[in-house]
């Protein structure tokens, strides 16, 4: 599947906006991303395994904060940084 990477995280992906990875769950996908781009996962998932406050994940067109959500047969996962701060 294709993971769409927001600009704040592209310093990890060599500026790639789209990265192809495999996995059965969202967590598989994020861990696969982290293996390829070390450090990326901790910027969006904290040490209690919770999605950080201003991050949203979309599996296809459905938002979820469940890292165990299935991504089987899903073509796109979007990582979204919600607007915040000033």
């Amino acid at each position, binding site marked *: 599947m294709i993971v769409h990477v927001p600009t704040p995280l592209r310093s990890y992906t060599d500026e790639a906006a789209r990265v192809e990875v495999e996995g059965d769950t969202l967590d598989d996908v994020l861990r696969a991303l982290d293996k390829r781009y070390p*450090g990326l996962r*901790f910027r969006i*998932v904290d*040490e*209690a395994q*919770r999605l950080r406050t*201003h*991050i949203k994940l979309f599996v296809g067109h459905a938002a979820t904060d469940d890292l165990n959500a299935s991504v089987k047969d899903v073509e796109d996962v979007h990582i979204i*940084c919600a607007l*915040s701060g000033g």
Partner: protein
Amino acid sequence: MSAPKHKLRVPRPKTGAVSLLVGTRKGAFFLRSDKERAGWQLTGSEFLGHVVHHVVQDPRDRKVILVAARTGHLGPTVFRSEDGGKTWKESRKPPAFDPPTEGASVRTVNHVFWLTPGAVAEPGVWYAGSSPQGLFRSRDGGKTWKPVNGLNQHPLLDTWTGGDKDGTPDGPKLHSILVDPRDESHLYLGMSGGGFFESTNTGRTWSPLNRGCVADFIPGWTLDMEYGHDPHQVGLSPTNPDRLWQQNHCGIYRMDREEGEWVRVGENMPEEVGDIGFGIILHPRDPDTVWVFPMDGSSVWPRTSPDGMPALYRTRDGGATWERQDRGLPKEHAWWTVKRQCMAQDAQDPVGLYLGTTSGEVWASRNDGKSWKCAARHLPHIYSVEVAGVVQ
């Protein structure tokens, strides 16, 4: 605490150009002076858009600089440079809490707030303090970090700190991590809130060290109360580490370890100014001399210069008397806030002093605070100012 160990040799004053490492809400900036410390050149930004709480050079290896950073969206991390700031790499394992012990609350690092290099005898060792209160140690120059669970999983930590409501408006903080230069196993740290604590075994166990401090925001407080205080910044005298100085939420204090309790020397400040502030600057050689930057702590705590007239106050007699130093600073309508990591000193003679304001100005004095000049303006909200030796 055993008897005082010994005082340290008074070092010869340093000379030459000075670098300032400036952490801001929107990135890191660097100021370099000329040899006379009269003119300043600004470079940066690095990490533009990142919230940078602290930028610290390793005095044991001047080419190493660590940056505590996060962004509005992403989690906290630490960046490090091994070439004086030319290039940066992220820590492979940033500070993060271990899973909680049974019954303890789940805690996650919101941001790394404070960085302290370890002792000379332990090259590569660094300490980090976080929000919420947590202590972390690196043994490899900041590449990887481990939680110091003697504090982070201490059964009384929640009791000491009082939870999220007992923090600063920007979250509870662990700060003022101090390493006794005579004994690297002897550590101190401050928690806002929580108080000031000591370990004599490299962080395995901790004891409160707050006797004598006021905590008048706690119902029923007494001067004997062991924890719950709000130290804003604490320092060890570089030449007499048995003398500590503290700017607290409730005043200015000095402690000589053989006495074992804090003395509120801020009561000797002018009554109309008070003794509330965030930072405190210790003289690099004279344990009797410190500088503070008072702010308005009345009613709803504006935390701005009293009456809009910024000034430092210096004592040279251990806090018995204080003198105002404001030559060159604005005389009116200057509602400055100077945060706890935004006051720094160099080790020259006369001492160079440096302030960073939340309105994005850096001010410098090269004569023990007698007169001041603006070194930079129009920066973002300043979170920290540290002095660095110049890397050639």
